[in-house]
């Protein structure tokens, strides 16, 4: 095992541990913080995979944006300090069993298929991404790129309409 492998397993353990904490924490604020660490862990996984751009996007959008928004909404709904009602034990067990079964099934599938790595190097320089994004040809992403702006516009308008409905 070389150092990079060790680091992968450390990161994986970190991600899973934090994710588990995130779904089991009693206080929702703490839950959000654990989610945050999960996301940071995933970002570092991307760094480990050397897809730096996605890693940075992950941090910018998820950590800097979505989690902040979630934290704000937690504050806004005054639930931050109260313990969340703990689910019934039966429900917990059922959920755990279902999840574990699903995990086993998928794990089996993954093992069955046994994806093999290609040795070709993966070039994900930002310039390559950018060129592809602006390319109007058939393998370019210009149209989705513009569509994203419309999606964002719609999301913004929708969210503003919904959020401001009550305050009128």
């Amino acid at each position, binding site marked *: 095992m070389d150092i990079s492998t060790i680091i992968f397993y450390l990161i994986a353990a970190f991600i899973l541990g934090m994710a588990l904490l995130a779904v089991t924490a009693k206080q929702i604020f703490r839950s959000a913080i654990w989610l945050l660490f999960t996301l940071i862990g995933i970002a570092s996984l991307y760094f480990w995979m050397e897809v730096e751009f996605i890693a940075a996007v992950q941090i910018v959008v998820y950590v800097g944006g979505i989690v*902040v928004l979630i934290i704000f909404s937690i504050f806004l709904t005054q639930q931050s300090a109260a313990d969340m009602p703990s689910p019934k034990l039966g429900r917990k067990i059922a959920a755990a069993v279902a999840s574990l079964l699903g995990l086993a099934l998928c794990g089996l599938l993954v093992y069955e298929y046994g994806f093999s790595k290609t040795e070709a190097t993966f070039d994900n320089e*930002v310039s390559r991404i950018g060129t592809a994004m602006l390319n109007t040809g058939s393998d370019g992403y210009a149209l989705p790129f513009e569509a994203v702006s419309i999606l964002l516009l719609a999301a913004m308008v929708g969210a503003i309409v919904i959020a401001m409905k009550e305050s009128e």
Partner: protein
Amino acid sequence: MFSLENITQIVHTWLYENMHPTLALMVEFAFIGVLVIALFAFLGLVLVMMERKVSSWMQLRLGPNRIGPWGWFQTVADTVKLIVKEGMTPNNVDKLLFNMAPILVIIVSMVIMAPIMFAKGFQIWDINIGVLFVSAVSSLSIIGILMAGWASNNKYSLLGAMRSGAQIVSYELSAGLSMLTIVVLTGSLKMSDIIQAQETGWWLFKGHIPAIIAFVIFIIAATAETNRAPFDLAEAESELTAGFHTEYSGMKFALFFLAEYVNIFVVCAIGATLFLGGWMPFHVGNWEQFNNIMDYIPTPIWFFGKTFFLIFVIMWFRWTFPRLRIDQLLNLEWKYLLPISIFNILLVTVIALAGWHF
């Protein structure tokens, strides 16, 4: 030309020749860690002292001058005092998050050092998304503040945290956009490329008016992002006592304090890199003679000189301006800075595409 490149190179090769690569890597990392911690200590001591001196000089007074030569040991005394002061954890706080927040803030301000180029060839990691990395990691510091504010179980802390939440997220946009103007001009996110592109002159001068506008916006946004006056609403003394770190004491408080100053350094270093050419000496077009003379000044001096100049400007702001109110602060961003920087980036695109810059 004096350069640190050779030194780092020599160390690098020597290590790899004499050691197992993993070990060599480890040793290098250890070096980095120690160096950055040393840099932290240095920045903490120097910037605090500088702040005090700048403020006192603007305020007709002398500033610390009694402890050590010209008062230079003042910050040492403060540091030692803070270390040996009780770092208390009040009763009703969320102990885990309360203690984690300052560490998180410190981690953020340390990780963000990675792509900064301190001198020619002296950089921890020339990451290929350099600028994006900086703006991504800096958005993490808000989490530490929100965490501290919430965990403190104190109304002032929470109010302060809220304020800085709204503030930092807002100003991130115009900071990012003004950084992008330089990316448009350079065509790369790498710090080294950006600096190299300024060999014939700094972007501030080469980039015409849009670069100057971007620079001004960047400085404003940087001041806001580091919670400095006139945007220090998060710790507005006269309103919220000490804001989000009201409940922090001793070393925990000192870590926030340190992180604040390191963040100032970082944003100013980024500003210096993007707009003032980082370690690149002052070059003018093709005046070979002049450029050669400029090259004699070592690159770290250029870098730190520029950075400290920007830090001085930010301190100058602090000791001149009153604080904005929260709604004015957000208005400034959303009504003025953001639209202006969006148009500015279009303008700079036109300039870049038309090749009007030098």
